[in-house]
């Protein structure tokens, strides 16, 4: 069989298509299974073999809202992730700009040091942060979560923005300076438009990370400032055996960010590569 002949090429394409779809469905299967389960009754959910054809019910979703105020947790997730990302960008962008365009002897060291703070396991700081939050009466507040999320994403933000700023050719900046552009004009009219893609992708990634953050949400919040990640963890008790309710709660928790991720995947990838992958 000659694989370079027209029929051969066609066969290869078919094999590749089928293999790719199989792999993708296999990886997606757990999510699909959970989505389907969320529309089942509890009995259908644990049927063996699994039921795939049934009359869907919305009871589980109403149950989730009734049992635990889903909307409150969703609101907390939204506020903490959005605000921490915006504040983080406001602090990280000037720093990245400064390091990218006015590098000093220490710039590389500062970048590496920032990354190393990110490598400290959060659990190492748990007790001190908990004690501090307690003494300042900030336990179980969205404010505390915002600060913590912002700080734990800051190193990544600086890194990503730094590598994006680095990609802007210095000649463009010099040309702008020759034309007498002030630093502020330069930043607003030259750098910002050129780096917008990088800023967007950095923001998107940090938004996803903050939304999915579980460690601090589990340990610093209770009924007031709990995020969706914490809400789901509360289903891990024996109640976890109620598969369809657990699934409904999970679907509600991940749906916003998964759909968001689908639409922004191109920008996301760009941000994740640290500008190192072309």
């Amino acid at each position, binding site marked *: 069989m000659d694989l370079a002949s027209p029929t051969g090429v066609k066969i290869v394409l078919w094999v590749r298509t089928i293999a790719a779809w199989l*792999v993708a469905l296999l990886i997606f299967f*757990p999510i699909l299974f959970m989505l389907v389960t969320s529309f089942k009754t509890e009995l259908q959910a644990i049927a063996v073999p699994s039921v795939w054809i049934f009359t869907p019910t919305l009871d589980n979703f109403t149950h989730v809202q009734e049992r635990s105020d889903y909307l409150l947790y969703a609101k907390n997730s939204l506020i903490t992730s959005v605000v921490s990302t915006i504040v983080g960008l406001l602090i990280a962008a000037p720093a990245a700009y400064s390091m990218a365009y006015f590098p000093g002897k220490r710039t590389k060291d500062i970048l590496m040091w*920032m990354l190393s703070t990110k490598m400290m*396991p959060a659990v190492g*700081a748990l007790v001190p942060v908990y004690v501090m939050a307690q003494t300042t009466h900030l336990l179980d507040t969205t404010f505390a979560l915002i600060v913590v999320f912002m*700080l734990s994403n800051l190193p990544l933000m600086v890194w990503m923005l730094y590598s994006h700023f680095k990609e802007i050719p210095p000649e463009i900046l010099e040309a702008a300076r020759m034309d007498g552009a002030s630093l502020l004009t330069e930043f607003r009219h030259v750098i910002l438009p050129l780096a917008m893609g990088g800023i967007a992708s950095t923001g998107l990634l940090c938004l996803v990370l903050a939304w999915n953050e579980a460690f601090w949400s589990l340990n610093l919040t209770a009924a007031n400032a709990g995020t969706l990640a914490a809400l789901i963890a509360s*289903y891990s008790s024996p109640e*976890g055996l109620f598969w369809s309710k657990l699934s409904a709660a999970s679907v509600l928790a991940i749906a916003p960010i998964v759909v968001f991720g689908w639409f922004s995947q191109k920008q996301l990838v760009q941000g994740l*590569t640290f500008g190192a*992958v072309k």
Partner: protein
Amino acid sequence: MRSLARLLLAPAVGSLFLWMIVPLAMTLYFSVIRYNLMEPGEHAFVGLENFRFFVTDPSFWTAIVNTLLLLGSVIVITVVLGVLIALLVNEPFPGQGVVRVLLISPFFVMPTVNALLWKHMMMNPIYGVLAQVWRAFGLTPVDWLSDWPLLSVIIMVAWQWLPFAVLIFITSLQGMNREQLEAARMDGATWLQQFRFLVLPHLGRSIAVVVMIEMIFLLSVFAEISTTTGGGPGDASTNIAYLIFKQALLGFDVGVASAGALFAVVLANIAAAFLIRLVGKNMDR
């Protein structure tokens, strides 16, 4: 110019410095005193007692080994499978866009959902999907979380991070020089040779990026363990992060937990030093 540059840098460096140094100083202090939440009273200075306690605890070494096993296996799995899948979906085929969307999805699933989804619906030994598959092949279903706790956690974490690796590799492959590949093919290079001498070197940088980011996030895997196995049975799936958590919040012993936290910091710094070499080599331009 210099001073302005410093001024712009100050908020980020300052806040990160505080974020690092204040907890570190407090941890250092807690680690040398007797501080048990169940025994209120004075916090006597105990020197290195807490460190001795933490290190001689047999769980300590188990936890270190588990941390490294978890980190290593997930990195190997995601990089190897990631490269293969990226190569598979790189060239156009019907439905490429949908396949990409399906492939990337697990990355957006939050760790607590990931953990509960696998624990109950996939790995339950009676009703779970894997049990059904095992039975379909006439095998006895495995009780994943009890019999293979660490492997179970590795599967969950790898499922989450594989899409990430795939995406980075796809992006990288798209920037490959096609003429070069074409030329190699003309010269009769086999598929394996093309892979070994053209594709793999091209992917070098993105592999470094994947390893770096995964290392940052995987050293402190927590939610997947706390919501599924609780570190057990015994210490079979306890990593350093979870061991410290157990000491602090379940054992109420802040002193010992703080000593443990300092070990974790040392471990993180060893990893960081290793990374700086790796990344420095691959990212210098």
